[in-house]
């Protein structure tokens, strides 16, 4: 058996098994037939291959590469390439399946895939990494491409890696240009504008729709945000443009190795805070105080008397042990981070009737923008930022409407509704193509 593809005791945690179990639950809700289940439970295609690389010291090292195409019934499959020292095919399978649902929930015409190489870039020089990238492309060039499978950056891969891969792909295709082969490229070399804003703005587009459905006036609402990274910053900006007031922001303080909540009832100004933020996203406490911010413990963001909570930092932030501290005034939780709410907390949130915009809908702005990048690359015509963001608004709004409509109709929790709609769309495509 190849290095890295190992068997562990069956009871051990396995991400692929977990993804399958999750799918099974949704399949039950949808009442999918056995064949459709069999088709969607496992990837359509898997490639596993060796990448020999001549190292800087002259020796040759062989790296293990993967590409898993889970499903492409709705369009070319799409998904990142991970460089991880302990990559396993099961992880890649689970993430590939996840990509299929993610693209389907925002209704973009793409399937799901994932790939990777077992390696740790910390142990590799830039030149060696370049050789791995080029080697990866050489091994799967005939099975990927703008019309088949489109890679993107992921864990420990960067725009630089994407450009090396693109260059190798084009070299293998007689120097013809195929910028749509890969996404995550820098602006000016096939990248899309609006990428920085996409996830934060996308979050607020869905939030705006939720407010409307709940009959709330954005200008009358207050929000509390956990995190002050890229997503949180752009979310705060757009929410303020809608008229809302952010009264608290929680951020990580590297020096104290703790997080703090900064509260300003009159409204947080992201530009003002950005001026006093360090490299780790930490806010200078003394300067914040001078600007009129009150400093509270790290989890105080959760307890604020606001209408909206936006966890946009880490996973597992709203848990069984602290969900009770959410203020009674809270009406909406918009998940900007991945998996910020645990299943136990989900239950309580559902019971209390708090409206939840689940992560994979709320932060789908990123993948939507990747899709736009590919569309622009394929047509070799690049849009202005406004155009990108306007199209993003349309997509997110439509996606939200569909999920919300389903949740209302079928009386489903929003998270389940999002899942159901995604699986349903993929299953339908397979059916329509006559596969099952």
């Amino acid at each position, binding site marked *: *058996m190849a*290095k*890295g593809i*190992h*068997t*562990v*005791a069956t*009871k*051990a*945690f396995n*991400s692929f098994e*977990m993804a399958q179990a999750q799918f099974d639950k949704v399949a039950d809700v949808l009442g999918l037939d056995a064949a459709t289940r069999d088709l969607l439970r496992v990837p359509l295609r898997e490639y596993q291959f060796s990448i020999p690389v001549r190292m*800087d010291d002259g020796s040759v090292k062989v790296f293990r590469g993967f590409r898993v195409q889970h499903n492409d019934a709705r369009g070319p499959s799409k998904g990142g390439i*991970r460089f*991880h*020292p*302990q990559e*396993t095919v099961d*992880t890649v399978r689970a993430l590939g399946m996840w990509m299929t649902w993610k693209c389907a929930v925002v209704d973009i015409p793409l399937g799901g895939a994932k790939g990777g190489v077992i390696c*740790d*870039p*910390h*142990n*590799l*020089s*830039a*030149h*060696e990494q370049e050789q791995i990238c080029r080697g990866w492309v050489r091994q799967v060039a005939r099975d990927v491409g703008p019309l088949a499978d489109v890679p993107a*950056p992921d*864990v*420990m891969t*960067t*725009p*630089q890696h994407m450009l090396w891969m693109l260059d190798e792909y084009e070299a293998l295709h007689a120097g013809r240009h195929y910028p749509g082969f890969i996404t*995550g*490229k*820098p*602006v000016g070399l096939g*990248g899309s504008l609006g*990428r*920085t804003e996409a996830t934060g703005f996308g979050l607020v587009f869905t939030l705006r729709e939720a407010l409307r459905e709940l009959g709330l006036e954005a200008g009358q609402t207050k929000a509390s945000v956990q995190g002050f990274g890229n997503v949180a910053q752009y979310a705060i900006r757009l929410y303020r443009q809608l008229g809302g007031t952010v009264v608290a922001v929680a951020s990580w303080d590297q*020096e104290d*190795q*703790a997080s703090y909540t900064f509260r300003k009832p009159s409204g947080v100004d992201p530009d003002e805070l950005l001026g006093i933020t*360090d*490299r*780790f996203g930490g806010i200078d406490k003394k300067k914040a105080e001078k600007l009129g911010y009150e400093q509270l413990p790290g989890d105080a963001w959760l307890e604020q008397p606001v209408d909206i909570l936006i966890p946009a930092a880490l996973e*597992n932030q709203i848990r069984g042990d602290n969900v009770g501290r959410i203020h009674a005034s809270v009406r909406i939780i918009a998940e900007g981070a991945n998996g910020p709410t*645990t299943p136990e907390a989900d239950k309580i949130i559902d019971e209390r009737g708090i409206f939840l915009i689940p992560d994979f809908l709320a932060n789908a702005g990123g993948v939507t923008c990747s899709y736009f990048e590919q569309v622009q690359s394929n047509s070799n015509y690049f849009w202005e930022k406004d155009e990108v963001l306007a199209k993003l608004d349309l997509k997110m709004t439509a996606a939200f409407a569909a999920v919300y409509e389903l949740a209302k109709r079928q009386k489903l929790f929003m998270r389940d509704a999002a899942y159901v709609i995604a699986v349903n769309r993929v299953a339908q495509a397979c059916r329509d193509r006559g596969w099952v």
Partner: protein
Amino acid sequence: MSLPDGPVDKILEALRERAKELNCLYNVHEIITRPNASLDDICRGLLEVIPRGWQYPAECWARITLEGSVYQPPGSVNTLWVQRAGIVVQGEVVGAIEVYYTRQMPRADEGPFLKEERRLINTIAEWVAHLLMQRRLQTTLRNWSTSDAAAPEPTLRREWWVIIDFLGKTDHQLLTRIGRRMINHLCWNGIEAAQQLLERSAADLRDPNGVWFEDNRPLEKRSEQQLLTLTNDAFRIASEYLSEREIIACIEQWIKDDKSSFLIEAVEDQGTSLTEIAEALGRYHQFAVQDRELSRPVQVGLRVSLTRRLLTDSLAFMNTARHFIEVEDFHDILHHVIAPAASHGKLGGKSAGLLLACQIVRKANEYADALGEIKVPKTWYLTSDGLLNFVAYNHLEDVYNRKYLEVDQIRREYPHIVQVFKHSHFAPEILNGLSAALDDFDDRPLIVRSSSLLEDQTGAAFSGKYKSLFLANQGTKAERLAALTDAIAEVYASVFSPDPIEYRAARGLLDLHEEMGIMIQQVVGTRVGRYFMPAWAGVAFSNNEFRWSARIKRDDGLVRLVPGLGTRAVDRVPDDYPVLIAPGQAGLRVNITPDEIVNYAPKKLDLINLETRQFETVSVADVVREYGRAFPALPHIVSVARDGGMLRPVAFDWNPECDVPVVTFEGLVANTPFIPKMKAILRVLRERTGGPVDIEFASDGRDFYLLQCRPQSFADDATPAPIPRDLPEDRILFSARRYVSNGRVPDITHVVYVDPERYAEIGSLAELRDVGRAVGRLNKILPKRQFILIGPGRWGSRGDVKLGVNVTYSDINNTSMLIEVATHRGNYVPDLSFGTHFFQDLVESSIRYLPLFPDDDSTLQMAFMRSAPNILPDVLPDYRHLQDVLRVMDLPNVTGGLVLRVLMNADLDQAVGVLVRPAGPSAAAETRHVDETRPEDHWRWRLRMAERIAAELNPARFGVKAMYVFGSTKNATAGPGSDIDLLVHLDGRDRVRPDLQLWLEGWSHCLAEVNYLRTGYKSEGLLDVHFVTDADIEQKTSYASKIGAVTDAARPLALGRS
């Protein structure tokens, strides 16, 4: 306002005279050194130039008598007013130089002549004599070689006899010395006849009975004739055994050696002052003898003596230096030395190290290509006795005995000492020297550094203990000189500051006198607007003690690189990071993902503000934004973060308004020879000095400058720990044989062990995450820096949590060590992280890292780890369900009082974790951090203070039910910077709590001040107080769990009465 005419005129007159004399000397020198000029021509030339050096040239003429010939201007007439100097060659007067005035002139020092003119004429006579001697030797040598070629067959009286004859007639002493060396030479070559000759000459000294003369009877002086016979005999024997060529080579060599004899005498005689040595070196310099031409023993002897007198006493240093620093080099150095009159001082270790490194690099021809040009900034030196001179000159002798005072008193008095020093004066000769140095430096900024002698003598690293000061060196000459003397006085005062005194006391060096040389160095850099700074600077080490990848070997070295002044690379600064590069593996960087690169990039730089004349720390982004391209070598320093990636600008078209500059040094590494150069420097210095080195360097954007070089010493927690061979098997908890760094981690009381097999078996993601959270909780509860973490795979794994415990740096920041276990899983061994997830944080806070490979060459006592009682359910009841996976062991409890000590030795690539009795106070003193001179004092004092506070506290007034102390004070591990952790159990009356807080705050400030006086550690308060209520205790939340805890329980304190 003007000075009276008289004195000014006189001074001007005198100056004009000196200029004339110098000019004359210059002309004479030029004539004498004309190659191939005949003696006649030279003498005629001299007649012309000599009179110009005298006071009244128009009335002056010269006459030279040489070997019977007389040279004088036509029509000159002898007068009474004459100054005369003999020309003496090898003791024989061969002529004279005379200077005449044609008529009577005003009286001066020597008749109408000045005393300066006496020196002038003497010097000219000496030069002519020297010239003559050279010519004679040349002729003789030429004769030998021609006759040698013409008549290869030796005749009875060989040609080299000519020189013996010559010497016999001219310089007996030289001849006998050479004769003596010939006898020795022959004897050492095992020639019997010579040995007999030696015995025979010795026999002359014996009385007829063959008994040596009584020691206390003076030896009869041997007649000159006897000695000459001996010499002749020696050469007769030589002619039988040695070739003609060899004999000539010997004689030639010995004559040259003999020329350096006066220099040897000067340096060997401990009574000669630096000035005299400088003069001797000057004379030697004039002979233009390359020291390479001397015979080896003489050459080495001279180099060693000079090193000892001028640089340092260190044996190791002399051993290396004698191969590289030539006699001529000392001549250059002495031109930049400032010393008190009759100085016997040295330059000290730092200066010596730099001089040596510089010579080594300069002479490493085989590496010349890689090394390229390496410069050293212009440097002046103030000798070590400058401090003594300064103290004596200002009658500050009292200061010497201050060091025997209690340290808190020293600390209290120290600011006054600084002021007194700053208001004292320097002796005039020092001021003159400094003034000359400033003229040489111009108005470039300077750094005044200490160069301690004690450091070399003892091998103790005083780095950072004494001050180094930056000077903007702007303004008028007087302002600059005042600033310079002020800085030197401050550096002098730092010898008497409490920290070095404590450090010396701890090492038993207090009784030795500290002498300190001063190095005044031009700061490398360029002017950027109102700032002055180098483009980049840093430190580099031969040995990499912080490897972040298994592919990096120890001797791949380590560079800490920053923009601006190197101060931020030398010291660890709390809010910033240097860029780390291993020159041997420059491609393997610590930070790979754009996030890592941005987060751990240097954000600030140190520089000199020429307007405020201050040393300042400013933000890199601000300087780049303000000055853009004017920032030296900017494309080599920064990359740009854009679109989630890092780009190295090809050309500088980026917009500082929106692009964020990130310091990566990618350009420097990729586009310049920096890495090969650094590799070559480290390699050459390691090879030639015989050990790993530690260098400081800087660049102004064009040239590379070496600033400092010394043997790589170790921070106190990073010396290689000796590993005993006879450790009992059952006491060894684990051992490792790969990727080991240096250091020792003493007195670990708790082990947190994540069982790799059990961890792999965990079935739910939530439970896997729980392990990380439980570790984070333990990190807060267990005694700080007294526990270690052992776990599978990669600590801090961010991707797949199954591959390593999911923690962030804040979850592990109190551990003293992080151990990663790589066990076979299926058929592969997982890669370890080498702490890369938070590598730079580990480095900057000295948390040790060790990987274990139990299936290969490491050992880990799995049985003990699994069987020892697990206290997890007691300390963290919430995480009881993890007890199969997460095991917490209270070592003293389960081993009958033993603690774990980890010994790490990178030289052997070996580490062991061994259970030992806790170190007693004396042994502890040895192993502890340097600043903890008497470690037991720190916790005892703290405990006593905690008891006092409790006793003074009125429980009824403040609503206090009980009070506890915990942490380092309770555990007897408190260091000088530790705080006192108090736990106050309140009865829940919130109203009085502010009063209590205020009351305790008073104590806290007061104790902080006392602690500062005792240790020099500043803090805003010494108390860390935690309040708990009944409810907390019931729920065992956070600190309340310390009360009555199973392990590391808080210790109750007796409260005062109401």
